[in-house]
């Protein structure tokens, strides 16, 4: 029996892609590299497709439902390496893509909260599973121990290379350690997940900056490959008069000081300039430093803030005001100390190029706001001075540079992004370095297809409302500024939220040869998800495009389930008189080549 369970890659089950699985009790697993399967997964599993690291989201949510938190944590780790960290501070592109956020479907699933829940709720005896490739004897220097550097180091270590990680600061973690406030990301958790990376034999050298402490050319001599992952740490300037007054901070330096345990001066009236995570973090930190009237000042409207709803909500809860449609025009000071900010009001306008909607200042609309301090959190750009002057071939997409053996990763390569993108970039860079060192591509993405018996979830799960994150109250937040605000889901909350997931990785298919066109499935479909089609478009890349629908029975060539609308209620399966609807679990995973 056992041997029938497993089909090797070679023994492709789908000789004919039209062949559809029928429900049965024997596991049949196929690893496909067919463009159509990649296309199907990308389209049908929007959360995973939206994740820069391609985390198998339905997979881990399903295991949370099964109370297998440890397994869920490992599924996460395969892709995003630090689930406990990302479960707190990820920018959550997955949730914007979640099908639960579509019309009629309610609010998107709390994917990120669930990620955190598996880190919180895994058993204390949980073991981290690593699959270590044989040692290669190659040495790689990774410069920068932020998310991209850590991810690159992790993957390189797994791949059998000897990794030395250089960090200019005293502690590893980069922006995670120095950018994000402790009340959002406890440092013991961060260090635990960093240690889980370092313990794979990665040598960490802190207080070692490229340039002052060790030269890049020296690294290139001593190592078989060098990856630069120093991120984006040069702050964007306001570019207005008065920017150099005392108590005008830049956001990252302000956070760095806070995170080093220093107490930078904020005063009672604090104006934060900026619309991203750092701006909100600065404002919330200013509250914890005693700020009574802390505002976030943004040029566009609320909608264009680059933070998620939770952050907006928490900032508001902490009494932070957000003033929109204004931009600073001058910083006013006395005795070299800031006393007020002059703003101009703005209005939204259209452009033909991205970002399409911009804010433009309104002439003569000045207003002056009295402040004790200003924090300019406008984001950062990468410090490319580290790169050799003769470097010309830097390709922001491939992690390679024009110099043999020199690679770039994460924000340093792509410009300022977010943590999950940096991790994805670090891992991609590790793959490129591995290919450079070994001359072969040792990992590849495939679509794992496995027959699945049932739909696994009752329709009633669709109507569960989103489970909110638990938080501590204001007094506790101010009592100790490092107290973590969010306290995570309980076991039952996590399972409840996990139930909401539509399990979009279950692919529903109708066998056109067995279908008798009775349309019973269409009658019971709760969404516009089963279609009478006369044609399927094929994209230039070989993936399937949309369906060409018809209501003319003479032209119907097939009744098809549109998996981009299907909410996996299983009602079609239940009514089909021909038993011709099959369910296949599809997962985009990485395997050894």
């Amino acid at each position: 029996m056992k041997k029938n369970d497993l089909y090797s890659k070679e023994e492709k089950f789908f000789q004919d892609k039209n062949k559809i699985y029928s429900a049965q009790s024997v596991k049949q697993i196929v690893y496909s590299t067919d463009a159509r399967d990649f296309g199907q997964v990308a389209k049908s599993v929007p959360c995973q497709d939206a994740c820069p690291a391609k985390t198998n989201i339905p997979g881990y949510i399903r295991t949370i439902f099964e109370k297998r938190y440890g397994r869920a944590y490992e599924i996460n780790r395969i892709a995003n390496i630090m689930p406990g960290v990302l479960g707190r501070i990820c920018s959550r592109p997955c949730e914007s893509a979640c099908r639960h956020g579509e019309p009629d479907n309610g609010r998107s699933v709390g994917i990120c909260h669930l990620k955190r829940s598996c880190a919180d709720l895994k058993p204390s005896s949980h073991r981290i599973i690593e699959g270590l490739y044989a040692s290669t004897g190659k040495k790689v220097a990774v410069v920068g121990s932020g998310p991209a550097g850590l991810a690159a180091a992790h993957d390189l270590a797994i791949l059998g290379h000897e990794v030395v990680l250089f960090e200019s600061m005293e502690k590893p973690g980069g922006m995670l350690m120095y950018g994000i406030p402790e009340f959002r990301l406890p440092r013991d958790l961060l260090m635990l997940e960093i240690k889980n990376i370092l313990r794979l034999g990665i040598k960490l050298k802190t207080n070692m900056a490229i340039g002052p402490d060790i030269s890049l050319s020296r690294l290139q001599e001593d190592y078989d490959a060098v990856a630069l992952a120093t991120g984006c740490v040069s702050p964007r300037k306001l570019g207005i008069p008065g920017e150099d007054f005392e108590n005008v901070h830049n956001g990252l330096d302000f956070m760095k000081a806070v995170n080093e345990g220093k107490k930078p001066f904020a005063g009672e009236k604090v104006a934060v300039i900026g619309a991203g995570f750092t701006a909100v973090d600065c404002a919330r930190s200013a509250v914890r430093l005693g700020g009574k009237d802390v505002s976030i000042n943004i040029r566009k409207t609320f909608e264009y803030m680059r933070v998620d709803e939770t952050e907006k909500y928490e900032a508001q809860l902490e009494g932070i005001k957000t003033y929109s449609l204004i931009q600073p025009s001058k910083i006013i000071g006395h005795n070299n100390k800031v006393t007020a900010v002059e703003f101009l009001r703005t209005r939204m306008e259209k452009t033909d190029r991205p970002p399409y909607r911009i804010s433009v200042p309104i002439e003569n609309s000045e207003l002056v706001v009295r402040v004790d301090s200003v924090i300019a959190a406008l984001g950062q750009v990468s410090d490319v001075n580290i790169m050799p002057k003769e470097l010309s071939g830097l390709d922001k997409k491939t992690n390679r540079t024009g110099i043999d053996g020199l690679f770039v990763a994460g924000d340093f390569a792509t410009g300022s992004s977010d943590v999950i993108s940096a991790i994805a970039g670090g891992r991609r860079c590790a793959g490129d370095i591995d290919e450079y060192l070994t001359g072969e591509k040792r990992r590849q993405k495939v679509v794992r297809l496995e027959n699945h018996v049932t739909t696994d979830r009752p329709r009633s799960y669709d109507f569960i409302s989103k489970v909110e994150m638990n938080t501590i109250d204001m007094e506790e937040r101010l009592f100790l500024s490092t107290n973590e605000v969010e306290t995570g889901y309980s076991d039952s909350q996590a399972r409840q939220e996990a139930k909401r997931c539509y399990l979009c990785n279950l692919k529903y298919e109708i066998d056109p040869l067995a279908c008798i066109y009775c349309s019973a499935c269409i009658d019971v479909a709760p969404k516009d998800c089963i279609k009478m089609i006369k044609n399927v478009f094929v994209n230039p890349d070989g993936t399937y495009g949309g369906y060409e629908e018809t209501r003319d029975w003479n032209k119907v060539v097939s009744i098809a389930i549109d998996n981009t609308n299907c909410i996996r209620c299983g009602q079609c399966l239940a009514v089909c008189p021909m038993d011709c609807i099959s369910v296949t679990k599809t997962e985009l995973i990485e395997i050894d080549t």
Partner: protein
Amino acid sequence: MMPDNDHYVVIGNGPAGNHAAATLREKDKDARITIISDECVPYYYKPRLTGFIANEIRREKLFVSSWGSYKEQNIRIRLGQEVEKIDPDSKVLFLQHMEKINYTKLIIASGSRARLLPSMSRYADCLKFITSYTDVMEHKEAIRKANDFFIFGGDLVAFKFLKMLVAMGKTVTILIYPGAFWPYNLSDDMLAQITQSLSKFDVGIIIKDNVESIDEQEGSVLVKTRKGIEKKVNMVFSFNGLSPNIDFAKGSGIDIDHGILVDEYLRTNIKSIYACGSCAQIYNPAVKSYTASIGWPNAVAQGNVAGLNLLGDHKVIESAGRKYFDLEGVKIKTTWWDDIDDES
């Protein structure tokens, strides 16, 4: 076959929406016009709700329109239907329960709802609001029977409601929350003035404190404050201002700040979509900024202008905005920045 007439859809059944619809019908006899409302009653006078609770006003006097008046105007009214999403590209509204409505032009007049303070969200089940007919119908009987009330917040409606309760002989405690007029905070001086003004009523006043917990206990509700005050009451009401009802518009491409941003012609950034009433933030060329509009007369005026402009006119809304509210004798600015104070 029906002629392919325009279909003007108005979201909202308040003064702005009804006046917009009426203007549209007046100017275009053939168009299909639909008002969508998430409430299940005809157009009613919101300011009369407190009087209705106190039995000073009879139910019939609450309504501006009867069911018949929509029919007369050939305006289709769809009550109890919530708009979930707008797709401006295909000009489709998505309602809850899978219905889609095509429109040719759209006026958003969805008004506003009571603001639930973020810090109070965990006690949402214990908090009552008085912002809609539905709220009132739900609580009216209970208010009459109850004796002890706790009011949290302190916006314009709060003090009206408080006076009504006192007049009904109820025992009332109010915790005045300085952020009730968000985004305008009450200063200590203002608080002192308000307290002074309220002292003529027999009410408990709590200031410079906050709610610690609210627990439902066998029919009554226990409110504890940070500073240790405990009040066992029958009902707790929250009055912390209003929030525009605009969730359905998020993500549609319509510019939104607190409310829906419109220019002085009440146009949104999207062609064929207008907004008016308290759900909108209107550009005011005079102050070179967007201002929220509050009050019945403003809503009526904006509804008319929106209707006219939608049909091709170019009327600029006359700002009926006030720079100050009168809150128990205290002047509250309608704009948040300091320097307006100096300008005025």
